[in-house]
């Protein structure tokens, strides 16, 4: 890994003009270092991915019975195989997203947040880059093990387009989820206990985000509500795209994700600016 450092950036002495390449290089390096860090414990990494086996086994039993009881080969346009592959992708995203809000709150409470501020980088972007490094590996592991299991249960996965489209959407999912985590984490500056917020967010994802059940199975009114909330675009969006990779759907998912990113990300940014000012005044 280390030898790859050679000769990417040129120029003599130190680069000081803050070229966008140098700035992007920072966060890339943070991402890469976190990746290395996660790789330092491969067994741990594997352990995290084994949970998905259990989930898929439970889902398989649940949905096999359901499909049997309904007596149809497809429900709301999804076959049992579709549903299982949907859930595999949903779980993979859910289990690999890195909960930054906890790290955030801890760092705020014990004051170590201050020590991350004495370097020339943006605190939020730093956390995002490092979270991404962590998520990517976990996602890879979950996907690998999850697909192996589901393949055995219901047969081959959707085509290559599904993987590519879903993969692209998942990156935006992480970004959106990161914004929520950051929001919860930043609230630690105001309230001491952030667990309640974290709990509520998790439940929203589980119920209205489509982690436990494809939103297509919801009654129409609940579907409307869910699809108009951001949570669906973190889990349901990419997972549904995975089993039905049409360009139209891809465009729709991206659009929704971008809208919510702009909204939630904007809020995070505003709050962050105020919080940093406050932090520097109060000291962690």
């Amino acid at each position: 890994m280390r030898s790859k450092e050679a000769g990417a950036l040129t120029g003599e002495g130190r680069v000081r003009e803050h070229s966008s390449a140098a700035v992007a290089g920072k966060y890339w390096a943070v991402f890469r270092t976190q990746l290395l860090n996660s790789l330092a414990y491969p067994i741990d990494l594997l352990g995290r991915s084994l949970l998905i086996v259990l989930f898929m086994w439970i889902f398989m039993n649940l949905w096999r019975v359901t499909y049997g009881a309904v007596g149809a080969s497809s429900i709301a346009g999804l076959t049992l195989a579709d549903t299982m592959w949907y859930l595999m992708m949903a779980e993979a995203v859910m289990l690999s997203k890195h909960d930054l809000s906890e790290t955030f709150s801890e760092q705020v409470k014990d004051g170590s947040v201050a020590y991350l501020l004495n370097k020339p980088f943006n605190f939020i972007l730093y956390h995002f880059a490092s979270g991404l490094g962590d998520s990517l590996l976990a996602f890879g592991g979950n996907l690998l093990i999850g697909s192996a299991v589901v393949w055995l249960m219901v047969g081959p996965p959707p085509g290559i387009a599904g993987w590519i489209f879903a993969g692209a959407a998942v990156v935006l999912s992480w970004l959106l989820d990161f914004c929520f985590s950051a929001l919860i984490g930043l609230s630690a500056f105001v309230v001491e206990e952030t667990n309640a917020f974290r709990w509520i967010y998790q439940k929203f994802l589980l119920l209205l985000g489509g982690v436990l059940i494809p939103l297509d199975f919801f009654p129409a009114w609940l579907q409307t509500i869910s699809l108009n909330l951001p949570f669906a675009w973190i889990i349901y969006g990419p997972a549904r795209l995975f089993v039905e990779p049409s360009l139209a759907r891809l465009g729709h998912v991206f659009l929704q994700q971008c809208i919510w990113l702009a909204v939630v990300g904007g809020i995070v940014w505003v709050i962050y600016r105020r919080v940093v000012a406050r932090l520097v005044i109060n000291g962690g």
Partner: protein
Amino acid sequence: MPAISVRDLRKTFQMKRKSAGLRGSLRALWRPTYQSIEAVRGLSFEMEDGELLGFIGPNGAGKSTTIKILTGILHPSSGEAAVLGHVPWQDRQALAFQIGSVFGQRPQLWYHLPAVDTFYLFGKIYEIDDSSLKRRISFLAEAFEIEELLETPVRKLSLGQRMRCEVAASLLHRPRVLLLDEPSIGLDVVAKQRLRMTIQRMNDMEGVGVLLTSHDAGDIETLCRRVIIVNHGEIVYRDKVSALKRRYLTVKTVDVRYNEQLAPDFSLPGVEMVKVGRYGAKMRFDTRVTPVEPVISGLAAAGSLADVTVSEPSLEEVISAIYARTEV
């Protein structure tokens, strides 16, 4: 222009006070009461470019708070400060490129990775191009004698080795000023000496100014020419280390042994006899009250001398005497 200048710096922390028990917690939630802690109370000092300045004081004196303010991660309640021409809390990011900091109680190296990985990360963060970074790392590795350690995961290093890596990491971007908050915490004698040597070496070679806090008088004695002593957020002493010694190391303890028996009523004017034996004595005197010359000649006149030892209190004792004097 001094590297650091601080004028009437103050920092008061507001701490939420919580009484014990559930009732207390609930009340604190409803109507929190605040307690103010004056961590820094009107500090003023300057540090020259390239100077090694000692900054010491007992626990809770406000040293770390001051250093945090100087790195820009803490906003003072009032007062002024300039570090290399920047107001730290207004110019934190720009300043970060020019100063380095090590907090002995807060390691910055990634624990599970080899130090060199953190070095490369910091290199990117400080926007150092790859070839300069490589040269810099090998230079620092040699100066800090850590070539052998760079590839080992940090968790497997001894504390002394790790601290040398920490300080080296803080110098990657060639800072003009280094803020070291207790770098020698927990180190053994040998590790402390090696760390001091490397700090001294970097100061010699690159002229980096160092503001150093420590609870070890030896660190200050070997490294710093000037020292500032703080207690309860205020400066209680500032001068050259040598002057500190000259001023406070005035109490001499003398141990004498003779080849013949001493007179049983042996004594000298102005000298406190701690212990008088048959062939020797232990005594103490203050050079500000009793000059040295008559004491020594008195000792020589008392008989045929076999051995004389004169000792003075350690800097450590002097400092604790100053702390005690400024206790309120």
